[in-house]
């Protein structure tokens, strides 16, 4: 059966959908959706076809939008997206994780909420109260501008009760009992600042799992690229060969455990691609060596950045790659990153790109 490729693009002014056939050359752009609310993360559940978008309005608070019909209709819900009275304050929702019939979303202040009814209602799962670092990560002095709290939720193929989360500036935690208990997963990571507790205090930007080896993880950290071969229990840095150790994104190849992709950025406040020349970098040997992929990408005066949910890879035999920039361009490759096309040029600033392969 023919397939359709759908990109869900979260932007500062709503969600957009880009759609193509398996050729991935001609793209139709639809949107903006979600009433123009700033969308942090938009995902497509390949099982149900439902689109979810976490969003926060400057005026009307935070919620999760959902569309069961590929963007034709949308509903917003924040029912249950609250902390108990007098405790933490929920200012925004951030990373979404969908799988095993559950939808989960991270929040700022840091906590994980979940929905068992497709995003209609939500309940608080955990604020990781017994974890190292918990006493300080909601301290305003530890929250720089744009603080996201719990930035990401990574479902695990084993089942609904096992997943990982990232607390911004503190690191990765894993649960295997649905959020009842947690373990830090940061051993071997590097920090360029003093640590009060060696188990936490690491700035993990993006965490990805190899779809063909569930013990193989990669992460882009504020301080370097890292690989794990034991399900995140220990990490080895694999930065050598990249132009900088800083970036926000990572994507794991769907069929090859040794291959993954990153987009290094200048680590200063600009956080753009180095030398104004756009490139995606690929390793095919688990981080021992790196190749710069740039054919079709702008190589002059391209001071563009890509945020932590801004790179995606599809699951076709020859995987396609997609990234969205903080200045509103979407670039796509239908040949594993060898060549690139600009498929949208003037969207609002992009915070996330996710891809789904659906039956036509």
């Amino acid at each position: 059966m023919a397939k359709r490729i759908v990109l869900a693009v979260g932007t500062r002014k709503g969600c957009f959908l880009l759609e193509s056939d398996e050729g991935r050359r001609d793209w139709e752009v639809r949107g903006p959706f979600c009433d123009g609310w700033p969308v942090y993360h938009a995902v497509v559940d390949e099982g149900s076809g439902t689109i979810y978008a976490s969003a926060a309005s400057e005026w009307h608070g935070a919620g999760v939008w959902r569309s069961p019909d590929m963007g034709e209709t949308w509903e917003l819900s924040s029912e249950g997206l609250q902390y108990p009275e007098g405790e933490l304050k929920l200012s925004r929702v951030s990373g979404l994780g969908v799988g095993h019939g559950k939808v989960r979303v991270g929040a700022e202040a840091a906590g994980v909420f979940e929905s068992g009814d497709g995003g209609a209602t939500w309940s608080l799962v955990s604020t990781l109260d017994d974890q190292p670092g918990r006493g300080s990560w909601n301290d305003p002095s530890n929250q720089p501008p744009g603080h996201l709290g719990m930035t990401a939720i990574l479902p695990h193929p084993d089942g609904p009760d096992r997943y990982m989360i990232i607390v911004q500036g503190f690191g990765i935690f894993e649960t295997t009992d649905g959020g009842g208990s947690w373990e830090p997963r940061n051993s071997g990571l590097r920090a360029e600042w003093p640590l009060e507790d060696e188990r936490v205090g690491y700035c993990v930007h993006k965490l990805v799992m190899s779809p063909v080896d569930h013990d193989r993880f990669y992460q882009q950290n504020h301080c370097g690229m890292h690989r794990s071969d034991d399900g995140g229990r220990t990490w080895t840095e694999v930065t050598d060969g990249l132009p900088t150790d800083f970036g926000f994104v990572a994507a794991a190849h769907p069929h090859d455990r040794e291959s993954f992709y990153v987009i290094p950025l200048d680590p200063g406040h600009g956080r753009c691609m180095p030398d104004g020349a756009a490139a995606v970098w690929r390793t095919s040997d688990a981080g021992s060596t790196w190749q710069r992929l740039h054919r079709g990408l702008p190589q002059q005066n391209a001071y563009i950045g890509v945020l932590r949910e801004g790179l995606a890879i599809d699951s076709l035999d020859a995987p396609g790659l997609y990234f969205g920039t903080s200045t509103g361009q979407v670039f796509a490759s239908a040949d594993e990153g060898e060549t690139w096309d600009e498929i949208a040029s003037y969207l609002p600033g992009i915070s996330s790109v996710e891809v789904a392969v659906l039956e036509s």
Partner: protein
Amino acid sequence: MADLHLPPTLPSLFVDLPRRLDVDATTVNEAIDRLDERWPGLRDRLCEPGPALRPHINVYVDRERAELATALGPGSRVDVIAAISGG
């Protein structure tokens, strides 16, 4: 009945919610309760837990800045304003 006016950012979030409607309530908070009964979730768009008005939502009763506890009289005009900001 209070004469309630809502900001343009709200009606698109709720089915058949008008910009202007009559509400039978004795305080601003009660007026928001009446709205939430008919359009579930609307309170959360205007108020934080506490409850308190969201930081960029302002309410005026008969042109005077109001709070949730502000009393409404028969025929009070209530304007809910989303602060002018953004770009």
